[in-house]
């Protein structure tokens, strides 16, 4: 293995606070939220999950299973060779239910379902079970790096065996428990704002979001493939602007991409003025002249929100169209959209660079 890892994207399934399924529209109907909590728009789950399985599943498991099912249908794949999932906080609703019963019943007469459903790999296990996928199976729970770790894992698998086909997905829920905890930590805004005004608010804190996105990836392209995730890099707790921008410059050089070649950069700013500081400095330096889009006003902030950003980038490349609602600067006047660069941050600790290229 020579260190070159990448993955072709063949299909995506995503359930988010915007309507992202069963439509050909691309962020034209926008949902607005006023209470700093963005929750998913969901389909009729019966169309995606068999009833015998469905009855036992909590809300987030239903959302995750549905996103995985839509993805496989989109990629026209029945059974991939492996499944990798990622989450920051896991199934909080089930964790809270089991814990509450435990405390209220003082550890007696407890039922197992909530306990089982609260395990972080429950979704990866469930998807494998429902499609009888006996291949590689893994789950990452590394806060703001979880989805990137999952992608890195997938890319290395594909470098080893490029005929493989993998399902990589993320999920996180806007649970009450997590909202309370994040309010304690001053991660969310204290005043209620409309999500579309997220970046006008110059205060600290962001807004809570949720969602699940699954990607079908492979080592060689197929009829379904339209773009490739060429490379990614994680940068942990950069202390200065210099540290982040040198890492970025080095990443661009390794991939032989100049800033001018980037058609759109996706800025994973969260609306928290403090945590967005380094991204703001990139915006004013390296990316000064690069067309910019943002996405966290549409999906909210959560550990794996980057998966919404990757969906956005891949969709822009597929449709060769940039929705108005994500534009944060002027765009290139014409020409093919070829290279998309994503920079994300979570709590000013987990930074990542991803580059998508159209085939």
């Amino acid at each position, binding site marked *: 293995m020579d260190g070159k890892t990448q993955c072709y994207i063949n299909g995506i399934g995503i359930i988010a606070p915007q309507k992202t399924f069963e439509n050909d529209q691309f962020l034209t109907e926008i949902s607005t939220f006023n209470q700093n909590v963005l929750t998913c728009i969901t389909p009729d789950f019966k169309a995606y999950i068999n*009833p*015998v399985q*469905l*009855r*036992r599943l909590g809300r987030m498991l239903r959302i995750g299973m549905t996103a995985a099912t839509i993805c496989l249908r989109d990629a026209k794949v029945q059974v991939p060779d492996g499944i990798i999932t990622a989450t920051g906080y896991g199934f909080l609703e089930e964790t809270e239910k089991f814990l509450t019963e435990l405390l209220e019943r003082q550890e007696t*007469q*407890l*039922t*197992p*379902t909530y306990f*089982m459903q609260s395990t972080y790999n429950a979704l990866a296990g469930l998807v494998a079970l429902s499609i009888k996928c006996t291949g590689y199976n893994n789950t990452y729970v590394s806060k703001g790096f979880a989805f990137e770790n999952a992608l890195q894992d997938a890319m290395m698998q594909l470098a080893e065996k490029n005929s493989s086909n993998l399902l990589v997905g993320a999920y996180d829920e806007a649970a009450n428990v997590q909202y309370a905890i994040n309010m304690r930590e001053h991660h969310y805004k204290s005043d209620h704002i409309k999500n579309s005004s997220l970046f006008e608010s110059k205060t600290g804190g962001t807004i809570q979001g949720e969602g699940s996105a699954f990607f079908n990836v492979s080592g060689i392209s197929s009829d379904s493939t339209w773009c490739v995730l060429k490379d990614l890099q994680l940068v942990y707790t950069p202390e200065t602007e210099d540290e982040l921008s040198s890492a970025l410059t080095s990443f661009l050089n390794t991939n032989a991409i100049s800033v001018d070649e980037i058609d759109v950069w996706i800025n994973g700013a969260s609306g928290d003025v403090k945590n967005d500081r380094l991204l703001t400095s990139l915006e004013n330096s390296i990316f000064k002249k690069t067309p910019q889009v943002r996405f966290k006003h549409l999906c909210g902030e959560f550990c794996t929100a980057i998966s919404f950003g990757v969906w956005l980038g891949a969709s822009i490349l597929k449709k060769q169209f940039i929705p108005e609602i994500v534009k944060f600067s002027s765009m290139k006047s014409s020409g093919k959209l070829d290279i998309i660069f994503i920079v994300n941050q979570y709590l000013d600790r987990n930074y990542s660079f991803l580059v998508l290229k159209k085939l």
Partner: protein
Amino acid sequence: MQQTIEEITKELRQELIKQLNLEDILPESFDENTPLFGEGLGLDSIDSLELVVLLDRNYGIKLKDPKEGRHIFYSIRTMAEYIHNNRPKA
């Protein structure tokens, strides 16, 4: 006065639908003789554990070995009969 088997059966229909989240079944149409596991309703080993807890919480019957459930939980009828015959006297 102790509940009759029929009364327990009626109660169990509601309880099972609620506890096992059997969303599409109405209590009136929940046949007391339909096998709960395998071919009938398709419940599995986790549901079996849920029923062990239901027996304890609602009727004060403690099963030590989950394997005992195999016969007790065959159908709502067999469950009701077992509860009627084994619940602690008030």
